[in-house]
């Protein structure tokens, strides 16, 4: 420490929320594994005192699938960036969701590839600028939660770095959910995304993030027009579907230990 993230970057806030969520879930420290891909947010794994696995770009979920199937009793949190998860990692993302394997995917969405200096990603809002989209992106960005749900994910929540307490609770609820859980955490990247799109400094970006968000509970009572341009936060969907690792072990008649060994 101090960590490598830029001043005002949301990664630290999201990581702190994750740690508090794990603390709140009261897991045994030995049972928790943090898996991450490659990118700014994925460096979080290297700062945390659990078993931590920093994998290759886009492949965190595939590594985590292998580990989960070998050790189903472990609690896996898979930290990925927006590009890491939905561009190069897209195939593993949709298949992990399809399997409904018990992994907690924490996608830190700062709308760009931060580590490499601010290129656009599949979650860059249309028209926004990036080093590789100087005139603004043309294509539409994914709705990550809909993508995951379409692929079979059974828990989808969205939070942001401007509401860390809520984010912490969402991660805890994800962790308690048996099945593929996605928490999309919108996060400011002042240095690359903020500066290039003239969104002000870290404080301005967090304030804008807070103002433009509305919890799903409050959104239901609002008219369609009032929700224009608003980002819905909270648990967006949660369904109960058999979890892949548990089903596999049941099919071979092998017990899953409640706690890890040793």
């Amino acid at each position: 420490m101090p960590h490598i993230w830029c001043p005002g970057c949301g990664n630290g806030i999201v990581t702190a929320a994750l740690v508090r969520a794990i603390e709140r879930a009261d897991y045994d420290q030995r049972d928790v594994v943090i898996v991450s891909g490659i990118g700014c947010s994925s460096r979080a794994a290297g700062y945390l005192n659990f078993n931590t696995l920093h994998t290759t770009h886009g492949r965190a979920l595939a590594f985590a699938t292998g580990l989960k199937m070998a050790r189903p009793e472990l609690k896996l949190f898979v930290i990925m960036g927006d590009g890491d998860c939905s561009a190069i990692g897209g195939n593993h993302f949709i298949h992990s969701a399809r399997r409904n394997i018990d992994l907690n995917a924490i996608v830190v969405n700062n709308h760009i590839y931060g580590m490499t200096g601010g290129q656009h990603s599949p979650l860059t809002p249309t028209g926004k600028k990036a080093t590789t989209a100087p005139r603004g992106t043309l294509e539409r960005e994914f709705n990550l939660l809909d993508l995951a749900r379409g692929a079979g994910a059974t828990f989808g929540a969205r939070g942001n770095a401007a509401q860390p307490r809520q984010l912490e609770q969402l991660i805890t609820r994800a962790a308690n959910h048996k099945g593929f859980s996605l928490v999309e955490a919108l996060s400011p990247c002042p240095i690359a995304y903020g500066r290039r799109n003239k969104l002000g400094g870290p404080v301005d970006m967090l304030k804008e993030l807070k103002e433009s968000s509305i919890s799903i509970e409050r959104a239901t009572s609002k008219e369609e027009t009032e929700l224009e341009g608003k980002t819905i936060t909270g648990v967006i969907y949660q369904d109960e579907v058999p979890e892949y690792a548990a089903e596999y072990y049941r099919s071979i008649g092998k017990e899953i230990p409640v706690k890890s060994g040793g």
Partner: protein
Amino acid sequence: MAQVNKGDYTADLFIKEEWCKGCGICVAFCPREALFLDEKSKAQKTVEKCTKCGICETFCPDFAISLIKRRLSGNAGDETGLDARK
């Protein structure tokens, strides 16, 4: 060091200057304006204004602020709060 008793806890705000990168988020989001950036743009606290609500701890991207709660009854060492400083 005036401490605010919250039930059977006392709480102190601990700021680790070496980790603070002066982003100003804590200053902006503190409901009591109890934080400010010094000339080296490191976060500092005004103890009198601080109500130990812990919002700054959750907003700090550098893990530089910790709200250390001590149980009043005996063992002062029972620190809770994000212990990511190790």
